[in-house]
């Protein structure tokens, strides 16, 4: 049976959940449902209606919120914290390496064609030193728990991981509605995230910057599914939210158009894909983007966060090698485990996967959002056979992993507390130094037994607490 995070193996409530258990008992199920309705009314009023992680679906949809927090003890968090920082550091070291000498490839630890022939690798970045040698300034690492002492990394997100606004909003609403739960100061705050993000972004100001760096958040616009998060974060950081049309490049620098004349911009926190950054450098058919932006970046006039080409580090085909990166660059053993992964692109991998497809979770290498995946144990023989045909047609487009025994977290059901599977995404900030707010986003599969936490597939979100003692 899956590990239920609220209980110890003997079935008693774990210390870190003791206070929440008391609160649940005192409030009662009917009381909790009443409060949940209030919370939902507030969310609707604020208007948080974007899909997590750009999953698509109806952008006006409200993501279900679950009232019961997911809790990590201080000891648990210490290990997570070290593991997350270790991984974020190794991923950035890998990015610097592959855009310079490629030592890890020369050492034969990662096949070079997997990097150099990968669409996510941007040849334009070769030989360039981004400020502080940082490529991925916000590393979102998706983690699942598979036992009392076991955390495993599902995937890394090195480009522009989204969802952090849920972490902030979920906490804000919980604090507002249940001030007593937080009054003793046992829960580590997360509301310093925007200030830390801004500090991180200012630390990577380009050589051309003089004085206090001017930071902007670049959004594709209000039609983007994460626009709410873009405007929310810009607002909390006190920086301007801009669209490509608001910027132009001149004399090697980036300028923002204002009614008082052009204003120089030093750092751009961009929530736009590489392809749409600069029509002169990347997609010529794109009408989006700021012409010359990449040229200004390479010549030190502006910093782009994340760096173009950072996506090579979070590619699903590269994921397998992250433990090797940690050993190679840091000389350490990985603190967080990787999930064993079979690559259908290899002969042995393909044979194993086709033989065991009924027991495995198979995914498209370039897929995301829980679409196009097969959960073997939950599929019919016909579904498995059809998926096997897809794999055979394009083996290198697929990977497979064992079905994980994901932990469950307490969730508010109709008749009381129920157990639902969850995952976790913390956001590690990388500037001149690393910063990690004690918390993150917990996504929960609201359907009983479901392992898919994506909001497009019936998932919800909940507050995540890291206790101080």
């Amino acid at each position, binding site marked *: 049976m899956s590990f239920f995070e609220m209980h110890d193996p003997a079935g008693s409530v774990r210390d870190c959940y003791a206070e929440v258990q008391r609160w649940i008992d005192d409030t009662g199920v009917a009381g909790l449902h009443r409060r949940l309705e209030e919370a939902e009314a507030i969310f609707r009023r604020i208007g948080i209606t974007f899909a997590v992680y750009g999953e698509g679906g109806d952008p006006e949809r409200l993501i279900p919120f679950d009232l019961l927090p997911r809790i990590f003890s201080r000891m648990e968090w210490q290990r997570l914290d070290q593991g997350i920082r270790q991984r974020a550091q190794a991923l950035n070291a890998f990015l610097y390496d592959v855009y310079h000498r490629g030592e890890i490839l020369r050492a034969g630890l990662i096949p*070079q*064609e997997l990097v150099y022939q990968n669409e996510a690798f941007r040849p334009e970045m070769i030989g360039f030193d981004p400020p502080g040698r940082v490529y991925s300034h916000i590393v979102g690492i998706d983690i699942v728990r598979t036992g009392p002492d076991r955390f495993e990394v599902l995937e890394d997100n090195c480009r522009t991981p989204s969802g952090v606004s849920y972490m902030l909003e979920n906490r804000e609403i919980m604090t507002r509605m249940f001030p007593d739960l937080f009054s003793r100061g046992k829960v580590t705050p997360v509301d310093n995230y925007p200030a830390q993000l801004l500090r991180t972004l200012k630390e990577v100001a380009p050589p051309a910057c003089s004085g206090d760096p001017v930071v902007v958040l670049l959004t594709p616009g209000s039609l983007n599914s994460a626009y709410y998060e873009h405007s929310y974060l810009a607002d909390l950081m006190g920086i301007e939210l801009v669209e490509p049309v608001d910027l132009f490049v001149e004399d090697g620098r980036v300028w923002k158009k204002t009614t008082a004349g052009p204003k120089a911009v030093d750092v751009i926190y961009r929530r736009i894909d590489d392809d749409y950054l600069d029509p002169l450098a990347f997609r010529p058919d794109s009408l989006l983007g700021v*012409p010359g932006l990449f040229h200004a970046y390479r010549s030190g006039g502006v910093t782009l966060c994340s760096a173009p080409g950072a996506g090579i580090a979070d590619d699903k085909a590269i994921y397998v090698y992250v433990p090797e990166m940690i050993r190679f660059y840091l000389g350490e053993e990985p603190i967080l485990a990787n999930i064993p992964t079979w690559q259908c692109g290899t002969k042995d991998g393909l044979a194993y996967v086709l033989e065991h497809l009924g027991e495995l979770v198979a995914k498209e290498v370039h897929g995301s959002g829980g679409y196009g995946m097969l959960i073997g144990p939950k599929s019919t023989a016909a579904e498995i056979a059809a998926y096997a045909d897809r794999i055979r047609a394009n083996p290198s487009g697929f990977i497979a992993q064992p079905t994980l025994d994901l932990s469950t977290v307490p969730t508010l059901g109709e008749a009381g507390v129920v157990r639902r599977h969850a995952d976790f995404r913390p956001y590690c900030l990388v500037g001149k130094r690393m910063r990690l707010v004690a918390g993150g986003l917990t996504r929960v599969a609201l359907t009983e037994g479901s392992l898919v936490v994506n909001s497009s597939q019936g998932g919800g979100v909940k507050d995540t607490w890291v206790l101080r003692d």
Partner: protein
Amino acid sequence: MELAVRHQTTYRYATPANQVSLLLRLHPGQLDCQQIRSWEVTVNGTPVTEFPLNAFGDGEGFYHRRGAFSEMEIVATGTVATQERHGIVSGFLQEAPLPIFLRQTQLTQPEAAIRALARSLTESEPIPRLHALSARVREAITYETGITTAATSAAEALALGRGVCQDHTHLFVSAARSLGIPARYVSGYLLADEAGHALRETHAWAEAWVDGLGWIGFDATNGLCVTELYVRLCSGLDAHDAAPVRGSVYGTTEIGIQADVMISLAAPSGSQQVQQQQ
């Protein structure tokens, strides 16, 4: 040999443009086979001075102006000394990892016919094999202007059987890559084509990597390796990637681009001057 070049590109706009951005790869590199004696790039008379090297080792300049322009006139002009090096192109200050040049793009996708053409080569030694490929490409696509466009892929050009230097080069790099040979697209100037006619536009050819020798330039259009008659501007994975000029304009649409290249022997004292005719 000293070659004098004047390369002019003129964009005309339907109504005056209020913002123009240009990415210029109009600065020939300093290489073992070519040395820059003098070179200047101007846009509407204003010199563009900064040409930092991009990832492929080619100079890359950027020009931006706001205002009202009904046309943009880009002029690259100067003198380059060239050497005959049997097609070997070396001396790059910056080199990208070779496997990058095995990447196919939309314009070079090796469809069945291209792979078949590549596989039909019987030569096993690398240089004869690449010469055979060059000859095969030239047979497969008869030189004819006005049939293909800048958006024509290697596979489309092969199916049409007619095209220009861009199509020859796309087919060459596509087939070479499908055989596991790193290859890239090169834009530049050629003093004259095989028949001795002056070219009034930029030329395109391919470079293929041969272990032990390095990059070798193959001009499939003329069935030759590059010689001292060639001036190399820039390279990329395909014609788009290696475009000498890329532009972005706001507030209007382009109504025409006109390119004009004049290349001639520079006149060192006592040598014969060949002035290309209009």
